[in-house]
């Protein structure tokens, strides 16, 4: 059930990334939704689930891009594993620590991808500080909001139900 949920979340992130982004901000979105899902899964489920989610999401993303298949997968695997380890070793239950984890995860991901492409002499990225910074902020905001929504929604629904119940009585 949990595995199915992770697969569905990654598939949904890919569909959103490739399809809805075009309608919302004309495809130039600087948010990597798959990375957000991988970090989310890692923080909530641990390093093993995180690295498997990273592998799956990264490979899918690579296969849909025109780059080398495996580079994004490797980067997301590392990020998923590290985020999972951080999630189990530290208390990451507040918005600020989560924000920091998302920012760090995006930077690590970018460093691995840019480093590997440079190492293999496949592609030169120059010095994309601004792009990486923008994406890390974007990913962190989306990730923290996702956490808040998932945590607050069930409580809000429950409170509304209880309020209705009281009115009836």
């Amino acid at each position, binding site marked *: 059930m949990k595995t199915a949920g992770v697969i569905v979340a990654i598939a949904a992130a890919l*569909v959103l990334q*490739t399809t809805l982004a075009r309608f919302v901000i004309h*495809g130039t979105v600087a948010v990597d939704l798959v990375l957000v899902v991988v970090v989310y899964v890692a923080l909530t489920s641990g390093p093993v689930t995180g690295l498997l989610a990273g592998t799956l999401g990264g490979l899918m993303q690579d*296969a*849909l891009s025109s*780059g080398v*298949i495996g*580079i994004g997968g490797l980067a997301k695997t590392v990020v998923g594993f590290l985020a999972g380890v951080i999630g189990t070793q530290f208390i990451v239950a507040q918005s600020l620590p989560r924000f920091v984890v998302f920012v760090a995860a995006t930077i690590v991901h970018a460093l691995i991808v840019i480093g590997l492409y440079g190492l293999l002499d496949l*592609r*030169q990225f120059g010095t994309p500080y601004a792009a990486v910074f923008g994406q890390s902020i974007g990913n962190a905001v989306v990730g923290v909001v996702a956490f808040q929504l998932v945590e607050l929604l069930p409580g809000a629904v429950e409170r509304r139900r209880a309020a209705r119940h009281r009115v009836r009585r």
Partner: protein
Amino acid sequence: MALLDIRQRSGYLFLAVMLGHVLLISAQVNSRAGVPVLEAVTFGTFAEVQRATSSVISGAQRVWSGYVGLRHVKADNDQLRSQLAAAEVELQEQRALADRTRGLERLLELRDRSHLATTAAEIIAAGATPDFRTLTIDKGTRDGLRPDMAVIAPAGVVGRVVVPSARAAKVQLLIDRNAAAGALVERSRAQGVVMGQGDTELELQYVSEVADVVVGDVVVTSGIDGIFPKGFIIGRVDGVEKNGPQYTRITVKPAVDFGSLEDVLVVLTPTAAREAATAGGTE
């Protein structure tokens, strides 16, 4: 093995997955032939999901904006837009034709290419990662698309087909870091290569230091790359940096607004350079 705790096992799993990735990357980097099967199959399958999602969203959008909202205005606008698009494409074709007739091509007895065979395609998805500037269109090999076919819009050059599946194709945009096109400055006929930078600007490189390039010059395709037909607009020179007589950086603002593309045309007619290469290869 069963006695190992979860942390150790996760470490082994991590190493195994990393090794798998390294092997996967190595296999691709060593072999430089064609499109990887995994990429083609995954893309072909996922394109169907993208198509379905896109058609649902497009349908909902059309219902909302076409029927609930400004019904008649939307219809008129669509008609005018398509007329304008057709006129602009025709204008570009005429420009390309005039360019050709001025040059030496007539002397070389190349056959008349005034009418490029094209097929219209709708964009059904954007790139899967922000690092690569690609789009997915709803036409594929069933419609005659092949790798390296040029993709254009009424405003100018969009990119090239990189991975066609049966009913969809991935298009690498000209602004992608790995994209390039043979180009020339329309006014001075200075030749160069336009390279994508991964952002919204292009760079014109390999320009001779004696060439005349100024801000505002229109840059068009030169046709020597065998992908893009000659004479199609790429953009305008946005900035020129020089160090003595040598050009250090020439930036080009693309004519196409890649953010608002909805429909494109895929050029089915092979370019002169590609035909010559094919003929040379078969001889």
